[in-house]
């Protein structure tokens, strides 16, 4: 019994740490909008998985990968049409997903999280992917920092800006995928962005910002988990409300 409860919590913690770290870079890179769109692209994938009776995360992973490649291509161009296309993908994914998923209960799961019992294969997959995200971001951090500061300067320092951007989007997509079970497609973006926004309020130091963003993701997840299980609330919604509460508290910090 304890084992049944402990595994999801452990996975939730590692996934939240990965989401917080991804969020810190996404905030600095200003790719929040693209990230929100990406999580919505998972919805038709979840629908397809239900239709084909395969693991929902597999279906979500498939459409996420497609979304990543589209956004990566769009980022190379800097025109107004980019925002328009992102807007179209955003809306059409939700619509397409809703059409594909014709059971209300399953649609609610897709949007707000909770896909049945966690299998041990899913536990190991989620944990290893989350650890990989953290490790890869740490390895990539200097290139990411140069790229988000100035792509031209990064290129002059022999950084392959295109490849760094693709790697970041892939890690972003993976972070969405592993947290999707807990928060669902509508809310998963907030686990990525709210801890980062909170951490940004609290520090001007780069390293502290990265660590704090990750820690705040964990804190929101743990508190959310405890509150949700104590009062039988929806996990995803509770985590997001807790994260938002922490953000509001961070606003109280006096600024220099």
């Amino acid at each position, binding site marked *: 019994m304890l084992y049944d409860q402990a595994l999801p919590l452990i996975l939730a913690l590692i996934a939240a740490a990965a989401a917080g770290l991804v969020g810190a870079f996404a905030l600095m890179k200003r790719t929040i909008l693209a990230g929100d769109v990406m999580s919505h692209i998972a919805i038709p994938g979840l629908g397809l998985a239900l239709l084909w009776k395969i693991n929902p995360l597999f279906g979500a992973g498939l459409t996420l990968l497609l979304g990543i490649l589209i956004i990566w291509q769009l980022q190379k161009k800097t025109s107004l049409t980019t925002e328009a296309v992102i807007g179209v993908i955003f809306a059409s994914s939700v619509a397409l997903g809703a059409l594909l998923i014709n059971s209300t209960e399953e649609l609610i799961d897709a949007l707000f999280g909770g896909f049945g019992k966690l299998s041990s294969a899913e536990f190991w997959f989620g944990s290893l992917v989350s650890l990989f995200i953290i490790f890869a971001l740490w390895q990539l951090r*200097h290139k990411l*920092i140069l790229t988000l500061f100035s792509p*031209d*300067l990064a290129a002059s320092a*022999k950084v392959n800006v295109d490849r760094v951007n693709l790697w970041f989007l892939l890690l972003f997509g993976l972070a969405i995928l592993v947290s999707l079970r807990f928060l669902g497609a509508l809310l998963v973006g907030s686990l990525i962005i709210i801890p980062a926004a909170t951490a940004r309020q609290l520090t001007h130091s780069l390293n502290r910002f990265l660590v704090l963003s990750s820690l705040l993701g964990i804190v929101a997840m743990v508190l959310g988990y405890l509150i949700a299980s104590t009062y039988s609330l929806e996990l995803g919604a509770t985590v997001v409300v807790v994260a938002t509460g922490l953000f509001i508290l961070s606003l109280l910090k006096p600024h220099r």
Partner: protein
Amino acid sequence: MDKILNVSNLGVTLDGKQVLKNLSFDLERGSTLAIIGPNGSGKTVLLKSLLGILPHSGKTAWAPDARVSYVPQKIDADIHLPMTAKNLISAKADVQNIKDSDVNDIISRLKISSAVLNTPIGHLSGGQFQKALIAFAMVGKPNVILFDEPTASLDQLAEEHVYDLMHELKTKDGISIILVSHELSIVYRYADQVLCLNREGICFGPPEQALTSEMISKLYSPDHALHHHGQHE
């Protein structure tokens, strides 16, 4: 003399518009080449082509031992980034496997205080920020540095400081320099060669010979200015 860069028949087309065409010139090792031209004449585009950031036709051949760095005109980065000059310089040093001691040498040579190094970039003055960008460029021991209007947003004192430093890099370290500038006095003072640019090369040579008053009025003629008005580089 030994050439560190040979450009021949360079052309750049962006969004279907020809921004540079038929451009040919050389950079001699250890010399300073100034590039002048009106707004929209393609100066920044030229630097980015030389850095290999922009796709182009024709040839930009660097000598095999060329290590090229870049000091940009301005950075579009969010000034609220939680990032210090130290973070940026360390990031580049890490990417290029440069030792900490080499980085410290650069910092002490440029006399950048640790207070400045550890200040978020958004809180630095224009002069401090420019100096940090020069320190960033010096990581990896470049033998060529491209300066894109390095003093555009600086007051006169800071401006002189940047040019003194640039001159010192040339005379003491033998670094070859390409300098984009608007100011003719700076060109006369520091450049060995000058390239007048208005989408194509209009003049090239030592400033005293190349920059005749006819050439300058041709380069900045109202025709050209009107033609290129409102275009950003």
